[in-house]
């Protein structure tokens, strides 16, 4: 689980980078309200800064190699969560949506208390499930625009060639926002939490019981998962 988490970062980075090369060749998207253009994806300075212009063929070559890594990595993650039982801690339950709101209020320092949580809080459950659904969405819409004739049914399911391309693009923007929020949250969560994602164990300090010295117990990710 930790492995696929870390693999996903560079792979997704390469996918977005090469995806920009492809998008550049037909950069049709923007946001406008009542005909007034708010944002154009992307402005010229953006292409210049990242040296994106005129690299369509290169972008496609990278994109169609790393799509395999993206897919296989995602598949391994999903299989692992299913077979280890970790999905129980990750999938939102019926309380999650209400609780996630309370978590959000807490994180924004509007509310003092936080609902009781297990390994992941309600907001995390929703976010970490959503990102997997987004990943599946990217694979599906990607395949729909990659082979719209052979996978015509998938293209139809994704709302047609145009809509599938828009979805594919929007999901990518979604990853960028996810990443930004994720990084802020990781920094706020602190060192112990970060170490857990690298090393696989968390350090929990317990109240001194009988002895004078405080006992420090080790909790590994694997023990956690087999317990649930």
């Amino acid at each position, binding site marked *: 689980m930790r492995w696929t988490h*870390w693999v996903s970062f*560079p792979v997704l980075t*390469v996918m977005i980078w090469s995806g920009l090369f*492809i*998008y550049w*060749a*037909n950069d*049709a998207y923007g946001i406008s309200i009542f005909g007034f253009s708010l944002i154009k994806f992307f402005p010229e300075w953006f292409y210049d800064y990242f040296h994106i212009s005129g690299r*369509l*063929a*290169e972008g*496609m*070559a*990278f994109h*169609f*190699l790393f799509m*395999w890594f993206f897919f296989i990595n995602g598949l391994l993650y999903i299989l692992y969560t299913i077979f280890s039982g970790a999905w129980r801690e990750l999938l939102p339950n019926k309380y999650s949506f209400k609780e996630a709101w309370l978590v959000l209020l807490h994180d924004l320092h509007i509310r003092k208390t936080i609902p009781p949580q297990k390994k992941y809080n309600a907001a995390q459950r929703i976010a970490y499930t959503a990102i997997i659904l987004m990943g599946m969405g990217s694979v599906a819409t990607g395949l729909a625009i990659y*082979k*719209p*004739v*052979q*996978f*015509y049914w998938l293209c139809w399911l994704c709302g047609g*060639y*145009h809509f599938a*391309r828009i979805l594919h693009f929007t999901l990518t923007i979604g990853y960028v926002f996810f990443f930004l929020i994720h990084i802020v949250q990781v920094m706020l969560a602190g060192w112990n939490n970060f*170490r857990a994602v*690298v*090393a*696989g*164990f968390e*350090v*929990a300090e*317990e109240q001194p019981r009988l002895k004078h010295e405080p*006992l*420090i*117990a*080790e*909790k590994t990710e694997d023990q956690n998962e087999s317990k649930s």
Partner: protein
Amino acid sequence: MKANHNKKVKAPLTVEQKIRRRTFISFGAFAALGAGAVTGWNWLLDAPEETAGITGGTRAPLRRALNKTELFFRNFFSNKHLVKTYPITYAVKTPRVNSLIGIEDDEDFDVRNWKLKVKLNNQKIQYISIEEIKALPKTEIVYDFKCVEGWDEIQHWAGVKLSDFLAHFKLEEAAQKPYMGLETPNGAYYVGLERESILHPQTLLAYEMNGKPISLDHGAPLRLIVPVKYGIKNLKRIGTMSFSNSRPKDYWAEQGYDYYSGL
């Protein structure tokens, strides 16, 4: 949860030491794998360009990956998978002209003298006039033409099915070979196609657009319409047709694009 008590006499590690040790090992492994990933990435970025030939213009490992991916996705190709078609009213009035390679650079071209040159396998050449082609049953198609750049346009074309053409001119035996090559009369633009795409029921040798003869910019008098491929394979103004056992040369595959470019 139970605290770890190490009962060995030798080297009894405190819990703090264990934590430190495991953190050190984990982060060491993490850094090593990270460095490995960076090395791998740099190797790929600095990989030499493939030897220019039928394909060219991209890093050698990426070209190998493109070719492998082609083989994988060709498993899903079927002549029963048809491109979605539309009513004629959906078709654009003035289809986009995206490229004139092989057309604007051919000042000597005279459409009245045009004949399709078919290179037969016994080194002989067969010439076919546009009248002979137009005498064959006409097939129309209104479909979403897709460019590798990402744009698409619903266009209306008409011509003879390539499979009908091959049957009528007794070229089926020649077309047993796995590839067909097409070139403009001046040879400036050229494409290669696999047999299965040639025989796809929606692949046409087109001579009409929106019910009128094709304009010179769109490839008069005869062009290829192959809806199972990106626009780059839809060669305008066909001059020469040939058949081969290996990939014929392909203009955009030489410039770093996927040879297959199938949809």
